[in-house]
């Protein structure tokens, strides 16, 4: 079956143990206001332009005949600095597995990240079925039905799951969804014997409050907990997608 990927990064030193290739699956049910991979939110292809470095030669705005360029009204095949890119590539599961296995000799494992990899659970399960001998890791928001969650978690070696906000109302406010499913899935992680790391991004004024961190610590019990600093560079990508960034709106 097919899946959609927005990036593939090699040597993700923070995405799992050893030498890892990280697959960023495109599309996410959450819309965290601070999201540092906004191109991972939509499930469809989109255009990203690094306008900051643009020298305004105008070449990409001239009419072209490539069908895939037409929706964007910009040519993807001409920028002299490669600033105009389509983000989102569809793969057959076997095709993606082959791409990963190209580096078989050096690879220790693969990490599925996103976006939300569980939103394309059947696809990643098929990819995993071709990756015998590699360690499989997942980075997830935990937002998936219990059934889907268990199905995938049972096939992976290391789990990195976010718990962003303990309070349900705030969770809805800042991520667009309730944390009910996430907390149910957290219970499952606590009940199994698996290498689990819970991560909380420290977003100033939103998740980094003392109440929130204390409440999260209580929820996760004995699971390992990592606090991640806010990514200061996140705003750049919003410009490239021509989307508003919450920090800048707050300033206005």
């Amino acid at each position: 079956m097919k899946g959609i990927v927005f990036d593939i990064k090699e040597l993700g030193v923070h995405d799992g143990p050893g030498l890892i290739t990280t697959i960023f699956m495109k599309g996410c049910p959450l819309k965290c206001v601070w999201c540092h991979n906004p191109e991972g939110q939509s499930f469809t292809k989109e255009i990203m332009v690094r306008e900051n470095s643009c020298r305004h030669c105008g070449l990409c705005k001239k009419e072209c005949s490539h069908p895939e360029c037409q929706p964007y009204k910009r040519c993807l095949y001409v920028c002299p600095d490669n600033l105009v890119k389509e983000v989102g590539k569809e793969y057959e599961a076997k095709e993606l597995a082959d791409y990963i296995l190209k580096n078989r000799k050096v690879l220790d494992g693969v990490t599925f990240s996103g976006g939300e990899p569980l939103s394309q659970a059947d696809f990643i399960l098929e990819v995993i079925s071709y990756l015998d001998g590699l360690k499989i890791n997942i980075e997830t928001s935990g937002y998936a039905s219990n059934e889907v969650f268990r199905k995938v978690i049972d096939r992976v070696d290391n789990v990195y799951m976010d718990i962003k906000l303990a309070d349900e109302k705030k969770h809805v406010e800042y991520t667009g969804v309730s944390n009910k499913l996430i907390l149910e899935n957290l219970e499952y992680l606590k009940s199994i014997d698996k290498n689990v790391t819970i991560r909380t991004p420290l977003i100033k004024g939103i998740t980094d409050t003392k109440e929130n961190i204390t409440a999260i610590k209580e929820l996760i019990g004995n699971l390992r907990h990592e606090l991640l600093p806010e990514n200061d560079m996140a705003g750049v990508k919003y410009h490239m997608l021509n989307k508003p960034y919450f920090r800048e709106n707050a300033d206005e």
Partner: protein
Amino acid sequence: MNKKLFQYYILDKKQKERRIIADEVSFEYAELGLTEEERMVRRFEYLMSLEEPFILEGEEIPFVRTVSNTPEIYTEDEWNELKKKHYIHESGYKSNLCPDYEKVLKKGLLELSENGSDAYKRCVSAVLSLARKYEEEAKRQNRVELALALHQVPAYPARNYYEALLCLRIINFSLWVEGSYQISLGRFDKYLYPYLKKDLSEGKITEEKAYEFLNEFFLSLNKDNDIYPGVQPGDNGQSLMLGGKDKEGKYIFNKVTKMSLRASEDLKLIDPKINIRVDRNTPEEIYTLCTRLTKVGLGFPQYSNDDVVIDGLMKLGYEYDDAVEYVVAACWEFIIPGVAEDVVNIQALSFPKVIDECLHNDLLKSETYEEFKSCVRKEIEKETDENCEVTKNLHFVVCTLLDNLMNYSDGKPKYVNYGMHGVGISTGTDSLTAIEKHIYKDKDVTKEELIKAVDEDYQNNPELLHLLRYRTEKLGNNDAIANENLKFLVDSFGEYLNNIQNDKGGIWRAGTGSAMYYLWYAEGIGASPDGRRKGEPLATNYSVSLFADINPLSLLEAMTYPDLRKVINGGPLTLEFHSSLFNDEEAVKTVGRYVKKFIELGGHQLQLNTVNKERMLDAQAHPEKYPLLIVRIWGWSAYFVELEKAYQDHVIARQEYII
């Protein structure tokens, strides 16, 4: 670290104020009609006699230059005459060699020169006279132990670890004064450890004190390096080798190895340039230790792979007992201490130029890619031959002290091989890939269209530029087409050159280093078929193109695809990682494991640099804020703000890998 010394020599650079300038000597020597050796010895005696002893309070490894120049032994006319008869390499003086430090430490200069020539004895006595002056100065300052040590070395054998370090410093100092340059410091942990081991076992020194001496020795190599520039300041070849097998195949990793890594990390200076030999059995912990040093951002250590290098050298005719002792010359060229007088950087082949010639002369008439490739192979051979031809009748100025500190039997070196760099291999590979793919496989670009676009620097064909530059396989991404083209270039160059003899009775050695040619050779050609525009620099050494995507894991497999034993003149895979990649111990371990994989896969040499683009850009704007910001250039590290802008810009333009 001795903070006072650091303040004086490194931060305040006060030693500069004490320097005087020596007089011209060449006209006098010419008038007297002196032989070359007599000129060299006289100049050495003269310069050593001008040197004044200077010892700071608490300084235990003294010797600092108080004469800032080395006047020429020949007049300009005489040089021109020589050049008519001979090929003169660089400045004409010897470089990129490694003396036999072990014998100096064991015997001392007096015993060594006992049966030597008068010239040698005069050099030794010039060294000892200066040592005597330092001894007197030490006595004057009531520095009894220092005075005693200076009474012993370098005249007599080093009796302990401290005297060994002091002796090394004096030898290093004296060789620079003699006028040779880029002289390696050899297998430092191998020859030094026996002294430390003995002192420790006899309870004569503590490990901490031993570390302080070593730290000060390292610092001492930075007192004068501003007057020892090569192409750029920092290019001085004070390279030091750690680790590696011994003759019995046992891996060396001792307390001196560890202290050397620690001292480099503590001092954060450009000298000595740290190299380490590893092999497929080197444990992961050693890579972790080395990666901690990499993280500091000095461009150290550089790794060499014993499995590949020793084997490669033996294939070139080096005996095992010699090959196993290899070190690196100034940058990365593999040399044998004591016995070899190889000239490892005598010429350089430009792969982009080869492809450019074939693009214009052979593409139109080549009906298949195989045909085109055979033209490329012929062109490589032709240019290689031309490079070899110009080096005939090479003459080096005799360097009496250096020559005698080698370990030649009957005064003759055992090896007199020449090394040729292979420059721009990624641009060459990517150009071949572009031609193979678009002209012969997909046939979506015509030959005429490609030649025209290259000649017009892609001005009138931005679509083709985009296609070739960004949408065609590039070396480093582990695509079969690019891997095969890389292998083709390595094989064509290595297999041909390694079988050519030079006119001194030695052989030629092919390499993957670039030295400064990555800028120089980019100027000689226009745009290239990989979408490189006219004037854009080539990548340094054995690295991927400046505009290729960096995929670090793919890159390991791609770059180790060819048999690198064929290009064992040296030249590392050079990689830039952003400093943020190393932000925790787990990440440091992972990067260490990454290096280990490269070695296991048969990589020959690796140069891993930690960079921070934002910091470099800020340093260009505000140099005063970054006097000690260090970057790696092509085979050496330098203070960023002291470099010419073209070299600064190149480091900034290299793609850093960032997560």
